[in-house]
């Protein structure tokens, strides 16, 4: 340690911290103040559309974790090939979004919602109707620009700070 | 741009110096016999015009019939690079000389190969398992590894 500058470096640093004392803090108080997440958020629940899904299982093949399970059956009455079970183990899902990207029929979406923690491990495995879109679990615009356009604009910290400085 | 030296040309030069040390050579790599690996490596590191002083990585591949240890070295001075390999056909107790004496950077990587692939590096100062614990059964990166 050598005081080459007689402590000027220390004083310079202290001016920076004291200036921050007078500045507005950049944090926000989470449960009360909520920011808009990205329009392309890959939320932690998969959303599946029963109407669009054909049961081709491209998503299941793409999934690196093997979290998607599809059982299809032929419906002899209507002469249709329909999905019997569509099961996602959210516990295995790593939210990579490759299934959404791969789906040729736009039947799978990432979830837009957050705070979707479960209290029991069994609830992590979601089947059929639990996977449908609902007001609590809207679909995100990941690989779906039409949906992204309707979602609110993401709040950016850059904008916030620039606004405050003005 | 780092120039990748042609394996065949380099093989010719090395063959002159160390006859019978090259097992095989292709456009982008050369395979050195395990017995003369250290000589060739030292030559690559120190010889004029080569000066491969920087070891990019060491890794090993399991091809069932043999293990291949891959070294890529770069010369910072001449900005050229070459891949050389060595093979060991013994599956029970594969052994390759260690290059830690030449490039110290190989230290952890050779330990990792020993750990995951089960290849012993002769002359390594501290050849212990690095990622898995002592007494782990088998070597996971081998293709026949059964967990």
């Amino acid at each position, binding site marked *: *340690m050598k005081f080459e500058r007689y402590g000027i470096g*220390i004083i310079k640093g202290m001016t920076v911290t004291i200036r921050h004392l007078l500045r507005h803090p950049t944090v926000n108080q989470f449960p009360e103040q909520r920011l808009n997440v990205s329009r392309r958020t890959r939320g932690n629940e998969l959303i599946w559309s029963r109407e669009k899904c054909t049961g081709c299982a491209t998503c299941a093949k793409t999934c*690196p974790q093997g979290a998607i399970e599809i059982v299809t059956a032929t419906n002899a009455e209507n002469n249709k090939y329909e999905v019997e079970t569509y099961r996602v183990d959210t516990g295995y899902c790593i939210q990579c979004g490759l299934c959404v990207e791969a789906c040729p029929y736009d039947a799978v979406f990432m979830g837009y919602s957050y705070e979707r923690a479960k209290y029991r491990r069994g609830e992590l495995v979601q089947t059929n109707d639990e996977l449908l879109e609902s007001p609590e679990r809207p679909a995100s615009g990941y*690989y779906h620009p039409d949906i992204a356009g309707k979602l609110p604009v*993401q709040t950016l910290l850059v904008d916030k700070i620039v606004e405050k400085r003005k | 741009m780092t120039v990748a030296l042609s394996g065949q040309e380099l093989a010719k030069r090395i063959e002159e110096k160390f006859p019978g040390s090259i097992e095989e050579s292709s456009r982008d790599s050369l395979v050195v016999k395990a017995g003369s690996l250290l000589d060739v490596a030292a030559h690559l590191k120190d010889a004029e015009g080569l000066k491969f002083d*920087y070891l990019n990585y060491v890794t090993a591949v399991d091809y069932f019939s043999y293990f291949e240890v891959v070294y890529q070295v770069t010369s*910072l001075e001449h900005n050229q690079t070459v891949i050389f390999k060595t093979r060991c056909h013994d599956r029970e107790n594969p052994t390759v000389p260690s290059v830690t004496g030449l490039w110290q950077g190989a*230290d952890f990587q050779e330990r990792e190969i020993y750990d995951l692939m089960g290849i012993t590096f002769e002359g390594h100062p501290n050849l212990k398992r690095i990622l*898995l614990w002592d007494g782990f059964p088998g070597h996971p990166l081998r293709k026949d590894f059964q967990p």
Partner: protein
Amino acid sequence: MTTTELMTLKTEPFVLNFGPLHPSTHGVYRMRATLDGEVVLDIEPVFGYLHRGIEKLAEERTYTGFIPLTDRLDYICPMSNNLAYCLAVEKLAGIRVPERAEYLRVIMAELQRLVNHFIAVGTFLNDCGAFMTPVVYMLREREKILDMFDMVCGQRLTYNYMRIGGVGQDIPEEFLPALRKFLGTTPRFIEEMEWLLKQNEILLARTKGVGILPRDTAINCGISGPVARASGVNRDLRKADPYSIYDRFEFDIPTGEAGDCYERYRVRIEEMRQSLRILEQVTKQIPGGPVRAEVPHLIRPPRGEAYAHLEAPKGELGFYIVSDNSIAPYRCHVRPTSLINLTALREMVRGWKVADLIVIFGSIDITMGEVDR
């Protein structure tokens, strides 16, 4: 005081375990340090607490399906990992990437470098004992970049943005204005950080001349990245072996000479400035067009092997991939920057104090996800 004088005090060395759960081991690194009082006599690193067998997992994933797992290697900078892996597969399969995608890749890689250096400098200063302040300021700046990453790919940490033959999606229209705004504010922020600690006498005393890594040792140990450049190894793969489109931009490679902790810190700060410079040029030049080449989802590269490397924020990150013409890599090896940069740690810390051990370790800037894989 010389060693002999010290030894006349009749001290007895003892072994102290640093980690795996220690505040400044940057994850779950563990070192068994042999200490003589406060002086470090020797250290022995112990790895493997975060070993997930990613190289083995790669052999059971498709080429595309492995991209999300590369995010988990060096979790501070997943974009670089994604890019390195995609470069390797593209080299293997001979895929050409569209122009716009190359620009987007450069944007992401440089933003990622900024993120990593923010974290590296912040935690390094925190290790020096500047209680949380630099790291909080740095995290605030990082947050701005994470916002942009979030906007582009929907996640803040595991981006999974690069694809083989391009990038995942085109950037949304609000991205470039946000980037320009960011480029406008960040130089001022870096100036402020310089005011905070650049000339601080205590920091100088703690880092100048501490943990010197000589140039020859750096090369022999395979050290790369800012650590090597601080020791005077003038090698940056963006210049030495230009990948993507880095040869189109003007930037300098900051190098140091002393090779001590302070020099590493300086090199990182300078690299941030250079990254900003590259980003300025990219935002001016970026063309339109497709962002992804026509690549089948399940690609089967021809039989062979390829090694592609890039200048990741921490150093040379490379992927060595062997293909057997199936949908999954036959062998995928990661050149772990952090692991190899740790090789020289033992030589660097011997003879220094415990406090210096932490500072030197912090100055190398490692991520355990990459060390253990």
